[in-house]
């Protein structure tokens, strides 16, 4: 019990420290927190059409942007920064202290959650301000929104940690990780209406969490009757939760088994 409390305490301290370091890197603040807002501005300004009665493209796009924000702040950010921490000797130094690996993971997960909350708030704020975005109307939708963010953040965090063993160096990490994220964004219905994509793309995207997160976010931000225009004809909320859970567990197991503290 005492050990668990200590692990959590150090995890909290680590997340505070990591957040502080994050805020001091101006480029990462701009890229991670404001880039989605900039994209929203561009896409919302260029595509002014409605894609269904009462549904603007920017409404559709915000749902997708919040979902892909989860992938950006979690998966993408961690899969790039952890190899850099490995190069800088951060991880090797930590490994030589009594800090437990769980505390390190907790620190990362909390950092991702904090960043996700800020990023989502920015998207909702500017979306409402600039494009008259409609907020979720019922408590059920807000509840769905909350668990999608929490489960999505967790899933994205562990997959980012798991993937962090793939890039050979911190410098090359971005080149390995970013294309994967961008391709998944295109395939998962972030930049285009999902149903307008070729079916092979849809089926490929359905293997990964981002497609399910964007669909889940659409269920929150689009009118209920829009569900009939989804591939399955409904929002598949249960299936979404299940897919995310499977990825979460798989990511967690892989992270614990394969995590590397230093470049060999």
């Amino acid at each position: 019990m005492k050990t668990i409390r200590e692990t959590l305490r150090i995890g909290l301290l680590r997340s505070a420290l990591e957040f502080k370091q994050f805020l001091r890197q101006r480029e990462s603040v701009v890229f991670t927190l404001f880039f989605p807002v900039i994209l929203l501005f561009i896409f919302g300004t260029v595509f002014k059409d409605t894609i269904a009665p009462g549904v603007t493209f920017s409404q559709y796009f915000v749902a997708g942007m919040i979902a892909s924000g989860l992938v950006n702040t979690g998966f993408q950010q961690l899969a790039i920064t952890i190899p850099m921490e490995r190069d800088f000797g951060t991880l090797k130094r930590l490994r030589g202290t009594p800090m437990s690996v769980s505390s390190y993971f907790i620190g990362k997960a909390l950092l991702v959650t904090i960043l996700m909350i800020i990023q989502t708030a920015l998207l909702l704020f500017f979306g409402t301000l600039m494009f008259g975005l409609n907020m979720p109307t019922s408590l059920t939708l807000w509840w769905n929104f909350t668990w999608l963010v929490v489960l999505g953040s967790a899933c994205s965090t562990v997959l980012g940690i798991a993937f962090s063993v793939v890039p050979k160096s911190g410098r090359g990490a971005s080149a390995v990780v970013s294309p994967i994220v961008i391709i998944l964004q295109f395939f998962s219905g972030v930049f285009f209406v999902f149903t307008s994509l070729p079916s092979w793309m849809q089926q490929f995207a359905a293997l990964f969490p981002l497609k399910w997160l964007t669909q889940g976010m659409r269920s929150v931000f689009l009118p209920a009757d829009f569900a009939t225009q989804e591939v399955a004809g409904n929002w598949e909320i249960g299936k979404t939760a299940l897919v995310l859970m499977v990825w979460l567990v798989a990511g967690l197991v892989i992270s614990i088994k394969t995590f590397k503290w230093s470049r060999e």
Partner: protein
Amino acid sequence: MNNAAAIQVRGLVKKYGQKVAVAGIDLTVERGEIFALLGPNGAGKTTTVEILEGYRSANSGEVKVLGFDPATKGAAGQRWRNQIGIVLQSASDAADLSVIETISHFANYYQNPRDVQQVIDEVGLREKINAKARELSGGQRRRLDVALGIIGSPELLFLDEPTTGFDPEARRSFWDLIRTLKSEGTTILLTTHYLDEAQALADRVGVINEGKIIEIATPDTLGGRNNAPAKVTWLENGVTNEVLSKNPTEEVIRLSQRFNGQIPELQVLRPNLEEIYLRMIGELK
């Protein structure tokens, strides 16, 4: 347990594929001593130290560090790290954090941390307390590394080439810091490329080459240094003469009689640790 040696190694072997990095090392480091491990690059020095630090596992042999097997995984291994401090070679982490922020944060990891302010004074970073790590000079950055290594009040401190890139003055004051730690009872395992550093700090030195310990001795007796012939040089008829002598005092008396007192440009040189060391690793190549 406290009477047992700080480090005990018996028959340590480590292979990377077919390549044997450590070929059966025996080593004992007593509590409270400064032990310097010397050896050329690729001799197995870093591998040995990293096994002792718990970063790598051995293929065979017995390793006890503070009575504990460093390769132990899980919570017990983490707890053991409360008693050790590690100062790695080059690290460039936490560049955006200040000296005080980093040291205070690391203090949280340990059961029995030292006083943060005191550590900052000891490593001489008082004036840089609010500077970011990226703004520190190489020597100051190294002092921060040492601060992080000793913040947990370690019984055993690993120092891996701690003064690389220091100017002579910074090196001297760093040595004073290490002597202070020793006087407080800290055991120190030092690896270094600087023989003068080993001479100045170490109670004993071990020379490692091709994965084996060639010799362990005090800096003054390593390689038979205390019995090695001294070099006596002097100036005569505008030419520097030199004689190697097992008994340089007699040589000097003889010369003094010949010159009727003052011997021009007299020097008596004992072989320094560096010459002895180079001869030792050279012989084996």
